């Protein structure tokens, strides 16, 4: 017997490709066809990315170095950062407070009736499906442009999301304390106050901080549509073709979002700690 096996022998006898192999090939090919078809239907040529790559390098030349001097020379930048944070904070506070209140009507175990519960749930999910900028554009027609309009739009936008998360938290409470109080003849309000609220308070707090993170990003987007703050500055600098300013604002946005994530994480942990101390 030969000591060295040939490559063919090592690979073993020829096997027909399995059914799984053909299945996968079919899936891959149909995916590619779908993607190509969609590009064709949209009349988009994806290779523009390669053929027009010199535009990218031109833009990079135009916007580097970013005009970070804005940080030192203009008070306007700090004003717009403040506007963005304030709109997000107030929107979260107002909308979140409203939503936590409403969520008791949307949770099965606290809602006055089944009809009210499904009505609230529907309202929440429809509200969540309406994009924030649509709310903002409607409000702009009423109270004009500026960070106040952004605050109002974020207040509305927080309700659906926050309400749903809070209602879910209420539905997931441990039922034993609730039953314990009910057996003693507590009213609905007493049950909520002494059996449900202590259980859901920490998750309400966490939800509010999560909504704040979301709202900060939304506030930047709303700024673009006329809500003031950093988004508005970005839109203006793009309109004036000031690409160095644009990059500087973009860096500010990234830094702001990353920083506020840290800050809200820190504050949330503090609050939740204090909360457990009190109980």
């Amino acid at each position, binding site marked *: 017997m030969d000591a060295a096996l040939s490559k063919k022998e090592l690979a073993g006898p020829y096997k027909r490709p399995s059914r799984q192999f053909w299945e996968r090939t079919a899936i891959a090919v149909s995916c590619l066809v779908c993607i190509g078809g969609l590009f064709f239907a*949209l009349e988009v040529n994806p290779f*523009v990315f390669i053929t027009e790559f010199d*535009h990218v390098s031109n833009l990079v030349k135009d916007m580097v170095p970013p005009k970070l001097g804005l940080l030192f020379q203009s008070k306007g930048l700090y004003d717009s950062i403040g506007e963005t944070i304030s709109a997000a904070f107030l929107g979260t506070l107002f909308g979140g407070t409203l939503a936590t209140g409403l969520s008791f009507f949307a949770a099965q175990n606290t809602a006055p009736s089944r009809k009210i519960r499904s009505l609230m749930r529907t309202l929440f999910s429809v509200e969540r499906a309406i994009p924030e900028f649509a709310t903002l554009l409607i409000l702009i027609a*009423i109270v004009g442009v500026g960070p106040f309009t952004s605050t109002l739009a974020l207040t509305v936008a927080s309700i659906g999301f926050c309400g749903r998360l809070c209602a879910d938290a209420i539905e997931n409470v441990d039922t034993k304390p609730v039953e314990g109080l009910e057996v003693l003849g507590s009213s609905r309000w007493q049950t909520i106050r002494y059996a449900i609220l202590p259980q859901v308070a920490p998750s309400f707090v966490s939800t509010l901080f999560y909504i704040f993170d979301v709202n900060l990003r939304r506030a930047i987007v709303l700024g673009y549509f006329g809500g003031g703050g950093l988004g508005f500055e970005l839109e203006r600098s793009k309109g004036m073709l000031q690409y160095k300013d644009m990059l500087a604002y973009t860096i500010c946005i990234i830094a702001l979002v990353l920083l506020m994530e840290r800050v809200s994480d820190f504050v949330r942990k503090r609050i939740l700690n204090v909360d457990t101390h009190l109980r």
Partner: protein
Amino acid sequence: MSPRNEYDFRRYRRPASFLFFLALVVWLAAWQADVDLALLFANVDKGISQFGKHLPPDLSVLGVMARESLITVAMALLATPLGGLASLVFGLAAAKNISPGPLRSTARGLISVERALPEIVTLLFLIVVFGIGYFAGIVALAIGCIGMLGRLLGDAIEEVDSKVLESVEIVGATRSQIIRYAILPEVLPVFISNLIFRFEINIRASVVLGAVGAGGIGYELGKAMDLSDYNQATTAILMIVVLVLVSERISDVLRKKVTARGSALV
């Protein structure tokens, strides 16, 4: 002072100082954001008449709106797999058990920067480069996937049992073989489920990007509001609500299926 009173005082000191601090911050923020409740209440009747102008929805443009919604869906459909592919690369580079230190920290840094960057900002830069149109929107959405999916995938890969990796490594598997036979089978079901969830997010994002200039139903809504065609705007909003709710439902069903089939996919 009796001990009882002292206890009561201490008990309320913390919540009281917290509320005082909160009130201060709210006042500061309200001043900064030009909050003007008087303006709001003065405009209540204007608001009511404004809502009146939005009704009834203009159903004659329903066909156009439906077509534009399909474009929005198509943009999300194209962006999600492209973004998924990009985040596969970033996710692999961001996992410490298969990628070398410097590469990992670079990938992690890029991922967190991307996560902090709203899609709309990416789109503005892309519009400068490629002009207004679907293509800029698709690329912006695809880039937007990297922050979320790349991070989730990187974390999932880092959680793969080291025994699985070692057992493949010990029989002499190359890095690509490790990825193919040890890592992908473990993380792919979760990744696909995340990808479907991202599709749902991309539909929403695609509407917003549309209003900035990427086209689709969002663009129609922005245009209708600009032209004060409030009845048309209502049609667009209703269309968006239906679109988002349907995509939510579909993504829920699909994700349940993927989770149920689990590793049978690989």
